[in-house]
């Protein structure tokens, strides 16, 4: 192809700058700035003084911009970033729950992906479809269905009640939140694992067996190393949405176990409106996740930069 076709990417590049780069830049700007009010001479007004001014001028109701007795300024500040430190326990709690959820997903998903990858072609496709099918249902509804199951008067407790045990407090616990994460993101673990494992030739495994390796050694020396890239992308694809979720913790955690996602939501569309602090938390979360990713990426042996990593 000619080098002219490079320009086919031009519309996308423009798009990318407007909708990916600038929004992230805005987050950085918001995280490091705050709005202050000064009087016309440029002296800083305290909130109290500003409230007084507001009352004096009838809330500036019909005033044009140039008549206003104050100026609004955006100034650089580190307070929001410092304030994020207050919420590090929330971040750590989110990370901890996400790690547990990711580990469980890996434990459940790995054998399943392996079993599927060793099936006949037709069965493989069928099983894969069965893994993907639940993802087509709205995830809020699926999570809501878990509420129906886990509640104190829910289906599980009713079932246990028939046998004479329970009722157990299952909903509104950290366990329920982890369960919600595992349930919603398990397919994201299985799919990349499967797509890597299906490339492992049965003959490689047979060769190892012929050479006298027991099944444990076959696993640790052949299957595991070959599936490592799948493990890495599976981990990222489960960990990232788990660590930043806010719906699962709200629906299954009852709002008593706040996660970092809830905290961000709270600052933007929730009960404590403060987009500057929200941006600062988002920024910290983003940097943290990029760092985590660079760590997991080390699991990837080869440099497969483009394509193949997702699905």
């Amino acid at each position: 192809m000619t080098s002219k076709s490079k320009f086919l990417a031009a519309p996308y590049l423009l798009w990318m700058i407007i909708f990916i780069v600038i929004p992230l830049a805005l987050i950085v700007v918001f995280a490091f700035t705050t709005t202050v009010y000064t009087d016309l001479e440029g002296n800083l007004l305290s909130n109290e003084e500003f409230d007084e001014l507001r009352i004096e001028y009838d809330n500036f109701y019909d005033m044009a911009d140039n008549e206003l007795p104050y100026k609004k300024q955006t100034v650089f500040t580190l307070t929001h970033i410092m304030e994020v430190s207050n919420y590090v326990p929330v971040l750590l709690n989110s990370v901890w729950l996400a790690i547990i959820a990711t580990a469980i997903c890996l434990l459940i998903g790995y054998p399943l992906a392996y079993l599927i990858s060793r099936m006949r072609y037709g069965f493989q496709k069928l099983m894969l479809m069965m893994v993907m099918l639940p993802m087509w249902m709205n995830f809020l509804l699926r999570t809501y269905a878990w509420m129906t199951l886990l509640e104190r008067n829910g289906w599980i407790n009713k079932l246990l009640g028939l046998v004479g045990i329970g009722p157990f407090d299952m909903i509104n616990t950290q366990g329920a939140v982890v369960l919600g994460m595992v349930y919603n993101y398990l397919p994201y673990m299985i799919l990349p694992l499967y797509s890597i494992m299906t490339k492992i030739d049965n003959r490689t495994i047979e060769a190892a067996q012929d050479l006298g390796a027991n099944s444990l050694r076959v696993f640790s020396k052949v299957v595991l190393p070959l599936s490592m890239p799948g493990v890495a992308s599976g981990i990222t694809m489960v960990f990232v949405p788990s660590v930043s979720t806010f719906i699962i913790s709200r629906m299954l955690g009852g709002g008593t176990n706040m996660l970092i996602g809830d905290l961000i939501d709270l600052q933007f569309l929730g009960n404590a409106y403060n987009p500057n602090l929200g941006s600062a938390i988002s920024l910290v979360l983003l940097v943290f996740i990029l760092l985590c990713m660079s760590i997991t990426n080390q699991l990837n042996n080869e440099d497969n930069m483009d394509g193949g990593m997702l699905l």
Partner: protein
Amino acid sequence: MKKLTNYLSFLLCILLLAAAACPVSAEANADGYDPDTLSYSNSVDWNKFRGTNTSINVYNWGEYIAVDDGEEGAFDVNAAFEELTGITVNYTNFASNEELYAKLKSGGAAYDIIIPSDYMIARLISEGMLEKLNFDNIPNFALIDDNYKNPDYDPTNEYSVPYTWGTVGIVYNTTLVDPEDDVNTWNILWSEKYAKDILMFSNSRDAFAIALKRLGYSFNTTDEAELQAAAESLKEQKLMVQAYVMDEIFDKMGGGEAALAPYYAGDAITMIDDNPDLAWAVPVEGVNLFIDAICIPRGAANKDAAEMYINFLCETLVALKNCEYIGYSTPHAEAYLYLSDDLKSNPIAYPSDEVIQNSETFTALPSDTTRLIDTLWTSILSNTSTNPYLAMILMFVAIVLSLGINVWRRQRKKQKMYESMN
């Protein structure tokens, strides 16, 4: 045996529901007012916008307007308005005043009608976020009870038209709460006996109000020490709380998931209708008396059409249908006259003077106090630390870890290459 009683009580509940669904409006109430005689007034030209393809965006609390729920005599306010005026209504919900505030403040979303509560109206007025209403377009404002005109939150009554009012009390499940216990106190929400059986407001103002009242302070305190004390007591309460909720309460109390929850009187009536095990208690320490009112946010695209909508909501017929459906108390003098005897004498919706006397309304707080409450509330909901450098230390550790692994890998790669070369 217990199963059987459960089953029976459920049957009973169904029967009661069926009874409630029967048309009650067939006859006049004890004062001789018959709702069937009501029709729309000609207070304004309802057809002014017909054919102009006008639409208004209405932003209201969840379950806060009469809709057609398929029961007999059902009245759909928005559909009726669309039919009468030809204006399209885009109707969406918010869950709390603070959510409404965030949505308006962040900009972007263009609403024509909003229905906030008293203190939020005061805050919105003070931040120049509301339009002054043109009362020439809202002649039905005259029908509002004089007691609700010129309220504290809008002293000159330029910005708002009252929609409903009510009190905050405790909804409790009679089968789960020990009859020996005194429910008429906020203290019961701190009782360890009901640990994990208590639901709590997830919005800061209502939650703080309860904690403040329990400690004997005013809802509207600006004293930092008092607010800190309230925050401490809310932290203490967190151990007992099953979940922080707003409208989720309908589901949870209706399904018997929790024993006690503070909520708004009007919604309590709806909940008790659905689940007869529930009951209402009014804490002796004093309760919050709130008014929700209709406002138009600053810069609304269709102010005239929005004022027509307000006028429509103040039609006696509409106000009546609305308060019958949502269960909240009405500030509409005429609609009150037409209320069924049942509702009129319902102490939850129309409490005794004693309760009213012992109530307090929210006022607007200075912005410093609002900020403080928001920060305290966030720290109650999340476990916070006090070390200001923790985030940086954490970042630093992560960066070092990531770099370290990277360097280590490069070394190994080099080593491997070296080995393979030999």
